[in-house]
């Protein structure tokens, strides 16, 4: 081993204080990579063994101290668990030698210290940070299906107490330096960067032979140890709440808590061994792989515009037109003005347009009040939104997004009206969620510039935007739409035209299967709870209420295939009965599958309308019907060429309608379950529940060839949408 000068450098001053400066020349940020670890251990050992060195300061030359582990290294799956474990144990042994050498190490934090970065700082005896409220200090590993594997999972409860330590690890909360100091994550805060080194040197001079708390026999864990009455209470309630939040679907969380339980009962070196064993189990879990692939790599690449057609000039948007100032239009205006665009917000009446702007004013006021936004920024944002009723105001816009009522004729009228004033090379987008783009583009004189930009509600909170390519939409329009979505810092996925596109179509199967389960005698509570137990954020019946049953009816009525599809006509019949015979219209009307007003409760009469026998029901089958059905529809979208890539399907499902991330997403779910098992279940369900469970031949072929869903060859646009 040797020190890689492209990762860190060491300089020892005449005062006997050595400074390790981390500066990864190959990356934009410092990462806790395998290469870093070996260089650091090498450097630290040399300094420990050099009698002339009195103490060591660890700092970063980059704007961050360290951003965390190098997740790219995990793209190649770890196949040899034993080798990985042994490497982890070796790493711990080396770090412990440095910790216990009796020579002071001080971490100087001036910028984010996250994950492995914070663990590096915890290997030091003293942590000093500049008092910059933008600096984030914490353990975000749980968000990618991992937990701190460099000693942090144990050190957090040692330093913060069991309750706070558990929360820091399980919730991945970021701390500002001031909060980190209060939480005992760091030891000292200084005002400026220049104050760091003198403070560190002072501490070294005063503490020539420091001992870490976990090596100090007199040290007491704040709030009491694991076997104290308080500790026992925290563990018991913690486990209950962990299931409430995760339903046992996230092994990282269970394992992290297990490490704390088992590790806090033994000496620290042996506790690290426990951490390493559970970390190995976690990092090799399907769930971690899925969360890193979809949640970190996939979304990261999508946000950077991986779907953007190559070689197309950037399409900057200075001025945006929004047609229709309802819920969606108002939200689109806000996020666009937030990103710095001038926004012309048009509605039929000036009151309507102004009301759309008021929506932004409301958000700005709330955020300013909560100190999440500067007043100046908010004022400037609002000044960029221009309410109007005049179609001619769209003149000079780089892009127009139409968000009027879902009516083909109305949409055609506004298209024509707008194109009359909009520059011939400018992009016209529709925010429709149900009507095919190709159909809408028929009203356009320039269908090559016509595209779908499908937002989710509420626009300012939902991260996904589904870009829909019509038959004649060209690459320039696609690139422009992606540039726009990137500008408003959302996640773009690109799909080909189809009724319901990708997300609405799959989401529809979720609510539809929920309705059929109810119709077949599964109690409403079981449908809702099983969906949530498997990781859906809300049950299919609750979400149908949110969307409103009347809107559902309207969407089905406008679908020309209503009569032809046995599934849709069955759904239509039941929904119509609920709406028309029983007045159950949805949440807004105060009466849907649930009763509203007081505490939200399932409508008791559901049990009379749909008779059930709980003892004969298999909740595993209920669970499979809820998730498999969505995955099967997602696969059809892939098979038909609606989706451009598997990862887009995964991202869309996770960020669009809340498909659980531990599965990787609606397509990775097929691998998660196992292709053969998935097909066998669908075949059984087809027999029992009807043709909607028919498995496309291409999936059978893929699985028969022993391949993963990620090996599926996606159709080209020409194949997918023959003219």
């Amino acid at each position, binding site marked *: 081993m040797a020190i890689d000068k492209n990762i860190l450098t060491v300089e020892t001053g005449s005062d006997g204080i050595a400074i390790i400066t981390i500066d990864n020349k190959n990356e934009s940020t410092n990462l806790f990579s395998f290469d870093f670890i070996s260089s650091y251990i090498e450097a630290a050992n040399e300094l420990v063994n050099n009698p002339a060195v009195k103490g060591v300061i660890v700092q970063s030359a980059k704007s961050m101290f360290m951003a965390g582990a190098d997740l790219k290294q995990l793209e190649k799956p770890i196949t040899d668990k034993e080798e990985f474990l042994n490497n982890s144990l070796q790493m711990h042994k080396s770090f412990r030698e440095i910790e216990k050498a009796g020579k002071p190490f001080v971490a100087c934090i001036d910028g984010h210290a996250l994950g492995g970065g914070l663990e590096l700082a915890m290997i030091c005896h003293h942590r000093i940070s500049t008092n910059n409220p933008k600096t984030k200090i914490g353990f975000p590993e749980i968000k990618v299906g991992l937990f701190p594997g460099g000693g942090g999972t144990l050190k957090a409860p040692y330093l913060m107490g069991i309750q706070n330590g558990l929360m820091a690890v399980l919730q991945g909360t970021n701390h500002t330096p001031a909060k980190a100091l209060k939480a005992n994550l760091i030891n000292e805060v200084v005002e400026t960067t220049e104050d760091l080194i003198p403070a560190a040197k002072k501490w070294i001079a005063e503490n020539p032979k420091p001992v870490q708390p976990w090596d100090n026999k007199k040290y007491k864990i704040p709030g009491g140890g694991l076997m104290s009455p308080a500790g026992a209470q925290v563990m*018991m309630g913690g486990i209950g709440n962990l299931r409430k939040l995760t339903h046992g679907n996230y092994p990282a969380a269970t394992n992290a808590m297990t490490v704390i339980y088992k590790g806090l009962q033994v000496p620290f070196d042996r506790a690290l061994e426990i951490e390493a064993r559970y970390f190995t189990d976690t990092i090799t879990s399907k769930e971690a792989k899925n969360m890193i692939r979809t949640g970190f790599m996939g979304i990261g690449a999508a946000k950077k515009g991986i779907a953007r057609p190559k070689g197309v000039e950037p399409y900057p948007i200075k001025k945006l037109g929004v047609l229709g100032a309802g819920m969606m239009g108002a939200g689109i205006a806000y996020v666009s003005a937030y990103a710095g665009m001038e926004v012309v917000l048009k509605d039929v009446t000036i009151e309507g347009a102004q009301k759309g702007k008021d929506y932004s004013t409301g958000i700005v006021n709330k955020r300013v009040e909560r100190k999440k936004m500067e007043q100046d920024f908010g004022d400037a944002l609002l000044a960029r939104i221009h309410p109007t009723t005049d179609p001619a105001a769209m003149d000079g816009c780089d892009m127009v997004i139409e968000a009027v009522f879902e009516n083909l004729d109305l949409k055609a009228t506004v298209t024509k009206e707008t194109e009359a004033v909009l520059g011939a090379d400018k992009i016209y987008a529709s925010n429709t969620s149900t009507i095919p783009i190709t159909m809408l583009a028929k009203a356009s004189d320039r269908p090559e510039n016509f595209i779908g930009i499908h937002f989710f509600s509420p626009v300012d909170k939902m991260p996904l935007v589904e870009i829909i390519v019509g038959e004649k939409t060209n690459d320039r329009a696609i690139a422009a739409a992606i540039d726009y979505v990137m500008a408003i810092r959302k996640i773009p996925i690109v799909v080909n035209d189809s009724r319901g596109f990708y997300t609405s179509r799959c989401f529809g199967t979720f609510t539809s299967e929920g309705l059929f389960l109810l119709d077949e005698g599964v109690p409403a509570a079981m449908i809702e709870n099983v969906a949530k137990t498997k990781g859906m954020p809300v049950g299919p019946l609750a979400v149908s209420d949110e969307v409103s049953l009347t809107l559902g009816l309207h969407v089905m009525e406008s679908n020309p295939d209503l009569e032809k599809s046995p599934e849709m006509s069955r759904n239509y019949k039941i929904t119509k009965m609920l709406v028309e015979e029983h007045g159950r219209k949805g949440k807004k009307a105060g009466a849907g599958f649930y009763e509203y007003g007081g505490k939200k409760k399932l409508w008791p009469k559901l049990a009379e309308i749909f008779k059930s026998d709980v003892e004969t029901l298999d909740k595993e089958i209920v669970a499979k019907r809820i998730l498999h059905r969505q995955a099967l529809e997602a696969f059809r979208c892939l098979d038909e060429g609606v989706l451009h890539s598997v990862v887009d399907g995964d991202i869309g499902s996770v960020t669009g309608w809340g498909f659980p991330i531990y599965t990787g997403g609606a397509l990775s779910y097929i691998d998660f379950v196992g292709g053969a098992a998935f097909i066998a279940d669908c075949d059984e369900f087809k027999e029992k529940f009807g043709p909607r469970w028919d498995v496309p031949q291409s999936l059978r072929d893929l699985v028969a060839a022993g391949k993963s869903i990620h090996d599926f060859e996606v159709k080209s646009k020409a194949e997918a949408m023959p003219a």
Partner: protein
Amino acid sequence: MAEAYIYDAVRTTRGRGNKKGALIGITPTQLATQCLQELRAKHDLNTDLVEDVILGCVSQVMDQGANIAKTAAQQSGYGDHLCGVTLNRFCGSGLEAINQASAYVKSGFSQLLIAGGVESMSRVKMGSDGGAMLMDPSVAMPGHAIPQGISADLIATKYGYSRADVDEFAYHSQMKAVAAEKDNRFTSRLDVKDVNGITVLDRDENVRENTTVESLGGLQPSFAIMGEMGGFDAVAIDRYPELEGINHVHHAGNSSAIVDGAAIALIGSKEAGEALGLKPRAIVKGAAVYGTDPTIMLTGPTPASEKVLKQVGMSASDIDLYEINEAFAVVPMLMRDNMNIPMEKINFNGGAIAMGHPLGATGCILMGTLIDELERQDKQTGLVTLCIGGGMGIATVIERV
């Protein structure tokens, strides 16, 4: 195979298991020792023939640590030859001790044993022995572990027992205990004494003569906050998704009282009884345990009872009297309804809701109470059963000799 006979059973009075309880100054070792001494005095027992003491005890730490059965055996003055073993089958421990002793006798391994249990819940708090079942996430998460009170409320929700139903049951438990006390029916009970021989407690301290259905109706549910804050309602619903929520019906007045107490039984072969000149009171016909889902946890009495009845070739209606531990009101109610047992056969003199449930001892207490009542009513057959933490049930069938 030999038969196992119960020659006698004695128990202490039960004191409230909190800092105001009468017995907080009396250690569990003293409670068990006083039972042993009472048994010897009552029968002028030749203790040389007693081989071993098997005691159930749940929280085996502090005062109850280091094998309390041997500790009490040593204190009892029975002689150095007397051994002691402590076991833990949670709430079924006292009955488990009887069953194990009976099995030793039936097998011929032993001739004469003492079996029973002890728990000082005022001195050693419930749960103070920790344990992985609820605290180790790698065990508790897959196990869907929840505290017993939530399980009891889950049973009430799932099987449709309302707050009024369980309160009414609890009221009758208190009234039956009051009547039994007035009628001096607890003939095998001994007063707990201090070091001077002065009586510390001469009755079951928790019995409340002035209990009414209305007063019970005014009590706050004990497990609602725990169910919400601890996430345990959600854990229960993960396992029983057909329920929209948990109806928290149990409270301090319709759950077993936390108390201190001890009980023992003398169990031996026919020959051992003859050698001592003792007349057997009952014969142990059969015994069984049965495991259930750990989340609902407390439904074990029905399958365990069905199992033991099958073993001895009897049906539920062949049993004259039942003792079904009142851990929570819903537990005996569910078994009553599952097995169509008439209420007058169940817990004739009240139960743990009125008199308390000293965890390790209760199984043996119920056995003593059952034998006393069978004799008083001059009936033949009885069944003792208890629900048990972690999802178990235990049941034993006896017959008068």
